[in-house]
Structure formats: structure tokens, C-alpha cells
């Protein structure tokens, strides 16, 4: 069985798509060197470097997608979408509506996200729940190499704008580039099953909007995405020793949410814990509360999220990110309440 690293899987799926579909092109800052293996196979017309002009090259991606290309636009970090948000909020997300449904912008925005390696608050945000507020944007947050490759393929076949977030703590490439810089003197709490894993011999698109139950459980359902899924799984293991049966649902797609899977999982346990590395308020954790309440499911509820700007100091950072300890404490609390 083939195994791959996380980013390797994405690039591999991308290579497969590029070989199959000449409309797929990549661009972004430093892309010629960051995606050099794609550059030397597909050439500089399809793998392009940009100036540091995110609002323009992202906006250009939208328009290029409208006129026949399938651009994968990379931004250095999801945080930097701040300078280019107009392209998503007022353009990518609006083309379909404004054209009366006749036109779409099938572009993929690829961006590293997430923290845990000491880069500080302007460089470690998650923002998936923020982006998901905008109607018509599809938001994918894979947690394993197999999902990452399969969802990238799905993104490239999707008929509208997709944001594909690549957690840096799962990415051997990004961690090496940004976090360790090849020193052996720093360690990060990398979830092994997310960083490297089995992948299919040929990529097939995974369905967008489909969650996956990573672990069954009867007492509480932990719903998460990205690195949070691995933290939740580790916590569930710890809790098992205490006789607590915690399930873990990996959303994989933040928008659109897999409402049936969420409702089923929560209805079964009667308890919902959301683990979300994105900011706590007005985001994914709230939306999940609304989804279950709307479905008329009564449950007890808690959330372990990032509540503030992420601190630079590693220790403070670890405490701010959803970690195993906070998850376990929150589950125990939820179980006590009733």
C-alpha cells in the first residue's frame, strides 16, 4: 500500500488533475519553487509565480475561472486573505447569483492554515468558520493525506469556488519551511496519522459535504476538523481508560456541513462537544449548535476552541489551541452536568 505525506498527497492529486485536464493552472507567490515538481513537469505557463499582490491574483483567479481555466490560486497563509477578501466576498461568491445562475467561478484557493509551531497571531489563524459565513463558498479542511488528495480532486471538479485549507501542522513541507527550517532542535506536536498515511494508487474525488465518523462512541460526540480531529481522537483514547465512550466525527467539509451525519451522531450520544481551532465566537461551533437545535435534537453542549489571538510563546500557544487536556476536561464536565 502506498503512503504519502500530507502535502505530497495534495500535490500528487494536483499532478494527476493537471495531466488529465489542461485547464488546471497554478499560481501564487513563490509557486515556481514551492511547486517545483509540478513546474518541471507542466511548464511555466501552467505553474506561475506572482508578485505580492494577493487581491489582484486572487481576483484574477476568479475571472480566469469564469472564462475557461481551472485555477488553483495559492496564498501563503490563510491569514493573508485579509488583503484579498473582496475577491472572495464580492466576486467569487457572487458570480453565480449575479449572472442569474448562468455563470460560475470554479477556482480553488489553496492556503496553509493553523498553528502550533510558534509563528504568532497573524500567521496561525484557521478562519474556516469565518469564510464559511459567505454563501456559495465551499470550504474543505482535510485531516489526513488520503482525504487531502481526494478532496483536492473533488475541489478541481467542483463547479464553484472552493477554499482548500492545508493545516501546517500536518504538512511536512510547510513545517520544514516555516517552523523548523531544517533544524533538529525543535519539535512540534504533529499528529502522526495526519502527517503521513495510506493513499489510493489513483486519486478519486471524495464527496464534498460528507463527514466521516473517525471513532464511534456512546457518551459524547466530539465534532471537529483538521488537527482538532486528531486531538479529539487522542482525547477519546484517554477518556476510554476512564470508562467514557467518546465518538469523533471529522467534518472534512466545513461548508456545506453534513447535517444528517452531525444530527445522527449527536442524537445518538445526547452530548455534543465541538473542538475547533478557529475562533470560538460566531463560527463553526455556533453553527453546529444551531444545526442540532434546528433539527430539534436536545443535547448538552460544550466547545473547546481558540478564544483569543494566538500567542507567540509556545507554552501560551499550546494552552490557547484546543489540546487534549482541554478536550478531556470539557468532556468530563459535560458528563457530570447531567
Amino acid at each position, binding site marked *: 500500500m502506498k503512503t504519502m505525506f500530507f502535502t505530497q498527497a495534495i500535490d500528487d492529486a494536483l499532478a494527476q488533475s493537471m495531466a488529465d485536464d489542461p485547464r488546471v493552472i497554478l499560481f501564487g507567490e513563490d509557486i515556481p519553487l514551492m511547486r517545483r515538481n509540478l513546474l518541471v513537469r507542466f511548464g511555466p505557463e501552467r505553474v506561475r509565480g506572482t508578485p505580492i*499582490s494577493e487581491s489582484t491574483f486572487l481576483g*484574477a483567479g476568479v*475571472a480566469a475561472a469564469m*472564462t475557461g*481555466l481551472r485555477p488553483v490560486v495559492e496564498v501563503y497563509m490563510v491569514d493573508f486573505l485579509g488583503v484579498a477578501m*473582496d475577491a472572495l466576498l464580492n*466576486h467569487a461568491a457572487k458570480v453565480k447569483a*449575479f449572472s442569474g*445562475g448562468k455563470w460560475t467561478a470554479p477556482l480553488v484557493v489553496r492556503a496553509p492554515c493553523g498553528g502550533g509551531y510558534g509563528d504568532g497571531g497573524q500567521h496561525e489563524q484557521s478562519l474556516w468558520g469565518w469564510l464559511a459565513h459567505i454563501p456559495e463558498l465551499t470550504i474543505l479542511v482535510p485531516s489526513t493525506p488520503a482525504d487531502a488528495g481526494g478532496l483536492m480532486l473533488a475541489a478541481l471538479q467542483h463547479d464553484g469556488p472552493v477554499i482548500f485549507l492545508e493545516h501546517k501542522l500536518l504538512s511536512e513541507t510547510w513545517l520544514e519551511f516555516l517552523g523548523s527550517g531544517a533544524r533538529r532542535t525543535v519539535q512540534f506536536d504533529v499528529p502522526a496519522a495526519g502527517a503521513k498515511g495510506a493513499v489510493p494508487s489513483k486519486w478519486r474525488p471524495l464527496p464534498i459535504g460528507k463527514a466521516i465518523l473517525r471513532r464511534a462512541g456512546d457518551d459524547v460526540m466530539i465534532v471537529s476538523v483538521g488537527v482538532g480531529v486528531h486531538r479529539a481522537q487522542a482525547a477519546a483514547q484517554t477518556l476510554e481508560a476512564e470508562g467514557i465512550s467518546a465518538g469523533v466525527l471529522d467534518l472534512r467539509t466545513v461548508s456545506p456541513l453534513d447535517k444528517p451525519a452531525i444530527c445522527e451522531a449527536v442524537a445518538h450520544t445526547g452530548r455534543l462537544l465541538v473542538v475547533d481551532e478557529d475562533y470560538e465566537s460566531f463560527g463553526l461551533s455556533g453553527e453546529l449548535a444551531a444545526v442540532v437545535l434546528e433539527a430539534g435534537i436536545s443535547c448538552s453542549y460544550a466547545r473547546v476552541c481558540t478564544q483569543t489571538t494566538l500567542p507567540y510563546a509556545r507554552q501560551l500557544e499550546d494552552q490557547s489551541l484546543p489540546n487534549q487536556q482541554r478536550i478531556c476536561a470539557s468532556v468530563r464536565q459535560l458528563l457530570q452536568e447531567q
Partner: protein
Amino acid sequence: MPPDLWALYALMLESRLFEEAVASLWHDGLISGEMHLGTGEEAIVAGVVAHLREGDAMALDHRGTAALLMRGVDPALILRELLGHPDGLCGGMGGHMHLFSKEHLAASSGIVGAEGPAAVGFALSAQVLRPGAIAVAFFGEGAMNQGMLMESLNLASAWNLPVVFVCKDDGWAITTHSARVTGGDLTDRARGLGVQAAEVDGRDVSAVWEACRPAIERARSGGGPAFLRARCVHLEGHFLGFQLLRMVREPLREMPRIAVPLTGAFLHPGGAGLRERLAGLRTVLEAVLATLRDPRRDPANDPVRRARAALHLEEARLEELEAQVKEALNDVLAATLVEAPA
């Protein structure tokens, strides 16, 4: 090859009459929200659009109607869109600031400056998928201060994209005299971003046509982007019902509404000293006075009239053409308005 002034005049006239009809529907309350017309900039739009071919794309601003009409979009579809009909160009979902035509590779945006990235993206597609095709961006001089538009000029230059940036410079951004908030010279600015730049009198359709021909030809043949700055005057001000124009056109009604609170504030105790207050007052008055001395009143500023004057010797042909354009428009209006909702 000289421009075909007859054809250009026909494009402009069609657009002018259509927009005048739109203005009257807007005044009648049949069109909602803001309404920015292109009246006054027709020579720029016609002079550029006349060069476009199948496969070329256009990124439009909040005044996109003229360009779409001249590009061949069915006027009935636009009209129905503006009226909010479900069978309008965009199913009633877009409205006048968000007119899209996939068939014509044309997209509008109400976000000032967004035409830059859009045109660059269109040009990228052209470069990769449709060699020989180009993209055009239309925007105002105010938009030249929007970062993404400046970035776009640079990216077009770096990627040597087939795109022509057309700056319709009327000197105003709503109530702001653009010269007051713009440093340097816009043409130099484009050059500082690596884009070949030229200036032209945007009220003279032949001049625009001639000025943009080499730019478009160069872009088509892989020579890279160009920037064209064309000065014009918007005959209806920023948008329909524009306050500054209203003050001039209906001073008795509008002036007191403005002047009474303004005087009250000017005299109100607490605040700046007299010198600063006067400087503030001067700013307001200058905007009003600029409207009074409005170059709109000068017929030389009306590109349609100017083109007509150049053709007036062949009066019969002119009359025939005009009758034809009017009739076509009337047909559209009649067909659409019959079924307009109450």
C-alpha cells in the same frame, strides 16, 4: 484604416437613447436603487469596443450598460434586468451594477477597482486558451487609487498579458474632485507599473478609436498590456438624482435643505476657529461651484453631439440612421413595458 464614424455614431446613439429611456424609467420609480449612466463616456466605450472580436472579454465598472449594448447584448435583456424581471439578463439577480453576460465574456462590478483583477484574469485565460484574444477593463480615474487596480497593471506587465486598461477620466469620484486626492500623474503611474500608456480626448470617438487601435493590436500579438487615459464628462453627474446636480437644477428646492443646517453648523459655538471653518465652507462651495460651471453645459463635452456634427453634411443618411436606432429602441421599450409589473 480610418474609423467608420457612422458605425461609431450608431453605437453611441443607441447607447445614449437607451440610457435616456432608462433615466426616465428610473425617475418613474420603475428601477430601484442607484443608477449610474454612461452618458458622456460613450465615445470612449465605442472607440474601444468597436475593436473587439469574438473571444475578447470585458471587465466593467458601475457604468457597464453602454459597453454591453455596444458589444451586442440584447437591449431587451438589459432593460428587463434593470426592471427586475425574472427573464432579465441576470434573472433579476444582478441589477445595473452587476450586469453579467457569459456569452459575451463580460462582467460588471460595483466594487471600484475590481475591474483590474477581473481583466487580468480574463486576459490570462485568453493568453492560455485563446491566443489572439484580449481583455479590456473600463474604470474611472478614482479607481486608479484602489490598490488592486494598481496591482493589476503590474501583474499584467509581469505576465505580459493581453489587456487594455481604459481609464475614463471625468475628474470626479462622486463628490470628490479626484485631483485633490491623487498624487502624481496617472499616465506616469501606469508607466511606473510597467505598462505602456497613452492619453486621448475621450469626447472624440475617432481619436479614441485611433489611440486604442495600436494598443489592442499589440496586445493581440503578444506585446503586452496598455493603459489608455481618456478624459470625459458625465452628463448626469455621478448617478441619477445626484445631489450636486439637483442643487443646480432645482436650486429653490435643494438649496435650503443643504444651506440651513450648514449655516447652523458653521455658526455653532464649540469647534474650530473661523479660519478653519471658512476653509471647510470653501471646500463645500467649491464642489457646488464646480457643478455650476459644469462642463456638461458645453456641447463640446457631449461625444454624441460631436460625432453627429462631423456627420451632419450627409443629413439624409443621418436622419435615416437616427430613425432606425430610435425605432429599434422603441420596439424594445414597447415590448418590455407592456408586461412591466405595476
